[in-house]
């Protein structure tokens, strides 16, 4: 199968959906990789916006309520925080507050995470606070294949979908196999990225790569790791996560966000609050997250804060030890 970059996989999804449905259009903070789409579809459907996130995020909500499917791209998610009223009070709640009378199909896609030495505003993992906003779906793909299939589903979904793209993938040029033919991945389906028997590692976004690298190392030590990627945080595929936890009896959850109130915290709760899964555990679940600090600038400080494969491997070894 051909291999393409994470960014190109997303652009392919956007192009296919724009060809398929003329109500799909873009509101973006800048063209960047969307340039070829502007050439193909024109600047009416690929609209560069002034740096007025509150206006164009809200305009996306309004257009969605009037029959369109906007894709809103502010760049880094931190830039969208100037539109937080529109996201929190309008986007997430309007469908519900109006008794379901109108639909707001839109995608808010933005870069997330650390790894580019740009300090705490440009480098942050904000997905956890979107999880506490009922009415938003939250997606964070970890591979080009998942990114394309999930983006197509996000665009077709009749609800607001917040689509996180780890920015380290575009910096590193992450590539992976993506079929030429059409496919979609339903929102709310986890994926077992590597099967194993001894320890379940649930990892999100670019932490999946760290988990897979750790699993490879640990295999050499005789520890068989199963890597589960939820792919969608809302809705979350709790069945697949719990099934894996029950099978291995040991759980490590990896999330780039600061530990307090992280997605890892929620996933851990999902695992332990299920009686059968709780009883199957041989050791306490362990979270591997960033500490509760803003992400610092200097690369050595940044790397210290962000979980890597060594952190994941150490947590797995400790979990195995505690279960003996």
């Amino acid at each position: 199968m051909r291999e393409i970059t994470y960014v190109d996989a997303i652009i392919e999804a956007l192009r296919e959906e724009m060809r398929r449905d003329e109500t799909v259009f873009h509101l973006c903070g800048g063209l960047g990789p969307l340039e070829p789409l502007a050439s193909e579809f024109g600047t009416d459907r690929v609209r560069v916006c002034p740096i007025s996130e509150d206006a164009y995020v809200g305009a996306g909500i309004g257009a969605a309520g009037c029959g369109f499917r906007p894709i809103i791209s502010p760049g880094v998610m931190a830039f969208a925080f100037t539109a937080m009223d529109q996201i929190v009070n309008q986007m997430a709640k309007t469908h519900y507050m109006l008794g379901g009378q109108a639909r707001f199909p839109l995608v808010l896609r933005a870069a997330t995470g650390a790894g580019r030495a740009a300090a705490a505003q440009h480098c942050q993992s904000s997905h956890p606070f979107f999880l506490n906003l009922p009415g938003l779906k939250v997606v964070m793909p970890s591979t080009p294949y998942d990114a394309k299939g999930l983006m197509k589903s996000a665009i077709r979904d009749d609800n607001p979908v917040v689509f996180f793209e780890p920015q380290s993938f575009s910096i590193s040029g992450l590539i992976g196999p993506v079929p030429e033919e059409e496919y979609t991945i339903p929102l709310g389906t986890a994926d077992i990225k590597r099967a194993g028997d001894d320890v379940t590692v649930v990892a999100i976004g670019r932490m999946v790569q760290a988990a897979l690298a750790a699993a490879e190392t640990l295999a050499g030590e005789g520890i068989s790791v199963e890597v589960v990627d939820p792919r969608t945080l809302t809705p979350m595929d709790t069945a697949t996560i719990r099934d894996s936890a029950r099978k291995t009896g040991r759980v490590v959850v990896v999330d780039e966000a600061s530990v307090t109130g992280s997605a890892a915290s929620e996933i851990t709760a999902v695992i332990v609050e299920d009686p059968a899964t709780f009883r199957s555990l041989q050791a306490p679940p362990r979270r591997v997250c960033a500490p509760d600090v803003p992400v610092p600038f200097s690369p050595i400080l940044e790397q210290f804060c962000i979980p890597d494969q060594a952190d994941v491997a150490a947590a797995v070894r400790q979990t195995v030890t505690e279960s003996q």
Partner: protein
Amino acid sequence: MTLEPARLLEMYRQMATIRAFTRRASEESRAGNIPTPIPANVGEEGSAVGVCSALRPDDRITSTHRCLGHAIAKGVDLGCIMAELFGRSNGCCQGKGGAMHIADFSVGMLGANGIVGGGLPIATGAALAAQLEGSDRVAVAFFGDGASNEGTFHSSMNLAAIWKLPIVFVCENNGWAIAVPASYALSVEDVSVRAVSYGIPGVTVDGTDVLAVYEAAQQAVARARAGNGPSLIECKNYRWDSNSQVDHAAARGRLHDPLESLRSHILNAGTADSDALERVHREVDAAVADAAAYAAAGPIPNPQDALDSVFAA
């Protein structure tokens, strides 16, 4: 301006309806049948009716927490509004939105908003949708003087101006942002001058003169429909009642009664006699009573209904 008698009487009916409905809702609130205070529209009927009279049914509006006038003028069913205020399942939002979130997309009422300035970008998006679909529909964003100090006022007007979106920004300046006077909070006396910053027309009209509002709205709507872009209309209003029965803004301005002004105009012009206007009031009172009965008889939600409609299926 000269208007045909039927249109004048319809404006009068709508303004009378807003007043009667709002007063009834406030009574129901005091009686405990509505679980929240009602942000009243008494004294501000002129701007709602004047603007919406210039719109077509397929045009769209967004509103503020002070939404009853806009909703009624845009044609939302009275019973569905009252039932929503009562928190009943037959309300326009199934009891999930309440007094600050009246909406009915089927008549182009895209929603009131509990956040000051929250509706301007959404109306801008409705105008963008009209432009994208190649229709000549127009969007109107209603907001208050308080919202003109929010970022969304400026960013939405700029966005609408650069894209020549078919939208009319309507500022109802009643002189008070909750309990903060505009004389303190506004850097300018007239909000309309802020249109200059965005290269669009801005006018100030007497919001208690429904005909003046209508004339300004017609011009702005025609401009938007023709593809010439947005406008800003400032309606100088007088808030009679306090913000929501919980603050302490003084009741003022009863000398500027938009309903009484229109009544004088109609009688002086000989459009109708006082008997005809009394008949309008009787019909309005009956319609409001029907709405209250519809609400009172409406089903109380099942508690489990709270879990529905988070996501569209």
